[in-house]
């Protein structure tokens, strides 16, 4: 760059600065740093990667809108036309689908990494909550977008998925009708989901992401627990931003490769967007109807509940339980009292791992791993449970081993309980819910005993 050029830039900058006073902003960005701690820096990039996939979603989504026509006689047909006739139409649709799955993967990793690193502790509680809401909206994007091609699989997945709101006390029926635009899933449902998918959710998402990013810019990224002031920092500009950019480029290459070589997905249930047959409300559901992979755990949990429980209908209890789990997850910053005071909270690290193991088993079982051809057969269910339990136990053993030797964790009560439930259910044949109740009861008993022992020990120390 010659002196003349930089002089012009400086003149432009001072022109802008005289009008909008941007110098403080530049100063802020110049001094912005990312903390370097004893932990792996990789976790800091996951939010950015998620945002990259969201940007891909916006661009490909707008392109899809140019051809998509919501309507009974046009929705399915327009997608078929798009994928078979429009040049690169298949590619845009495939990119949209792949990027959606990759966005959910990176978002899930981002969420669990901030959870395990306790990045939610003060003053960043609202960053956690806004991220949690963004996660919910992302699930909403996935769910609403799924119906838009108006094919058979989407029709039944939406029927089951929307039915869940019926369990909301008092308002359930009304909510269900508003969501579906009628008693059943019809083309009216598609119109509502279309409006949600392309207008309501994106508006809410962009608003929330603005808040989420603003919080992060104001407070900086969370330093590792116990290192209140990060000993060192990496300059955000240019060091971190360039690394971010490089990673985005890598993500784009992965996305394009997957799009080109597997345009209809890897072909595993829940990750397959072959258009298939058009939706027909008067056709029966068919075997192998499964939701997207990130809803499989809920699908499987619904299956594990008996018809009636505690005088309520099974699905109602199940949805109530899922609701409680989601509320607990949102309130983690306030529940984790130790991290709140900036102390190590091994219990919550273990809670995160227990959640992962819980989801792992249900997802594997939802996939009928080990069920083979007769997966829909009732007789195959114990076999599926056994094989999925074995996989989960192996994964759990590896996780606990690595945590014990590499990270010197010593608190495994909740992940132990999650594994005990899986073992009782899959290997000993105890029903899923009884196994869960036994394991949770045992975990609470052990925790209460430990707390009692510790407090009595402390009393002896003082006397």
């Amino acid at each position: 760059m010659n002196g003349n050029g930089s002089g012009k830039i400086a003149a432009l900058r001072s022109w802008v600065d005289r009008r909008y006073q941007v110098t403080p902003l530049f100063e802020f960005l110049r001094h912005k740093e990312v903390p370097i701690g004893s932990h792996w820096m990789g976790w800091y990039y996951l939010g950015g990667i998620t945002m990259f996939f969201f940007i891909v979603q916006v661009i490909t989504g707008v392109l899809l809108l140019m051809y998509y026509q919501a309507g009974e006689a046009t929705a399915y047909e327009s997608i078929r036309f798009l994928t078979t006739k429009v040049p690169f139409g298949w590619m845009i649709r495939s990119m949209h689908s792949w990027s959606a799955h990759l966005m959910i993967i990176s978002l899930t990793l981002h969420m669990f990494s901030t959870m395990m690193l306790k990045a939610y502790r003060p003053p960043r509680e609202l960053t956690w909550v806004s991220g949690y809401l963004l996660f919910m909206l992302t699930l909403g994007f996935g769910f609403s977008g799924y119906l838009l091609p108006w094919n058979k699989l989407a029709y039944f997945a939406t029927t089951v998925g929307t039915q869940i709101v019926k369990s909301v006390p008092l308002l359930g029926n009304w909510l269900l009708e508003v969501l579906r635009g009628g008693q059943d899933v019809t083309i009216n449902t598609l119109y509502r989901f279309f409006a949600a998918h392309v207008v309501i959710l994106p508006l809410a998402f962009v608003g929330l992401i603005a808040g989420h990013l603003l919080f992060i810019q104001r407070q900086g990224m969370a330093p590792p627990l116990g290192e209140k002031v990060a000993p060192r920092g990496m300059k955000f500009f240019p060091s971190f931003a360039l690394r971010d950019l490089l990673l985005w480029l890598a993500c784009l290459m992965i996305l394009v490769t997957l799009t080109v070589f597997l345009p209809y997905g890897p072909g595993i249930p829940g990750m397959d967007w072959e258009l298939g047959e058009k939706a027909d409300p008067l056709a029966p559901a068919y075997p192998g109807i499964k939701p997207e992979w990130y809803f499989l755990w809920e699908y499987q949990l619904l299956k594990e509940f008996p018809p009636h429980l505690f005088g309520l209908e099974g699905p109602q209890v199940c949805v109530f339980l899922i609701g409680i789990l989601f509320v607990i997850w949102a309130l983690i910053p306030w529940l984790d009292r130790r991290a709140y005071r900036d102390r190590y909270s091994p219990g919550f690290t273990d809670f995160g791992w227990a959640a992962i193991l819980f989801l792992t088993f249900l997802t594997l079982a939802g996939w009928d791993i080990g069920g083979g051809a007769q997966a829909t057969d009732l007789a195959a269910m114990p076999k599926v449970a056994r094989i999925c339990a074995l996989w989960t136990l192996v994964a759990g053993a590896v996780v606990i081993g690595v945590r014990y030797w590499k990270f010197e964790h010593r608190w495994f009560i909740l992940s132990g309980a999650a594994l005990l439930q899986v073992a009782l259910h899959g290997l000993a044949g105890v029903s899923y819910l009884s196994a869960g109740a036994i394991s949770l009861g045992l975990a609470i008993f052990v925790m209460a005993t430990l707390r009692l022992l510790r407090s009595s020990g402390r009393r002896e120390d003082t006397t």
Partner: protein
Amino acid sequence: MEEAIGQPSRTSRRRFIDLLLGTAALGWLVSLVYPIIRYLTPLPQTGATGPTRLTRDEAAKLEQNKFVIVPVSGHRVIVLQSQDQLFAFSAKCTHEGCTVTFLPGQSAIWCPCHDGRFDLSGRVVSGPPPQPLAKYVAKRQPDGGIVISEEKTA
């Protein structure tokens, strides 16, 4: 409140005005939200009600597949044929609302979504459905046509 009798205090007057303002704001909000709620609440379904006669296509499907799903008064109804007997049930699984199918070999009605099974009187045999399927009446007319009607509740 003695001072309020002689000379109303400024705070109580302000409070009163705030109350009025708050009520007005609330009313304004309700008048905005109510139309939106009504707008989003779907109208009751319209269309033919009462006994429904199977069309020729539907009857052929029944003959061929041993079952057919038809709309009756705006509901999905599965009509099935087992050992020359006709049965009709709501086709909407009582678990999560999927459309059920008929397994002629096992004389069972099956919902593939979460593996719920019903027998030929609509009762739950296995799986998670909490309630039996609602029964409909399927009658063969003298002219060979099949008419589906809602079960009369005695």
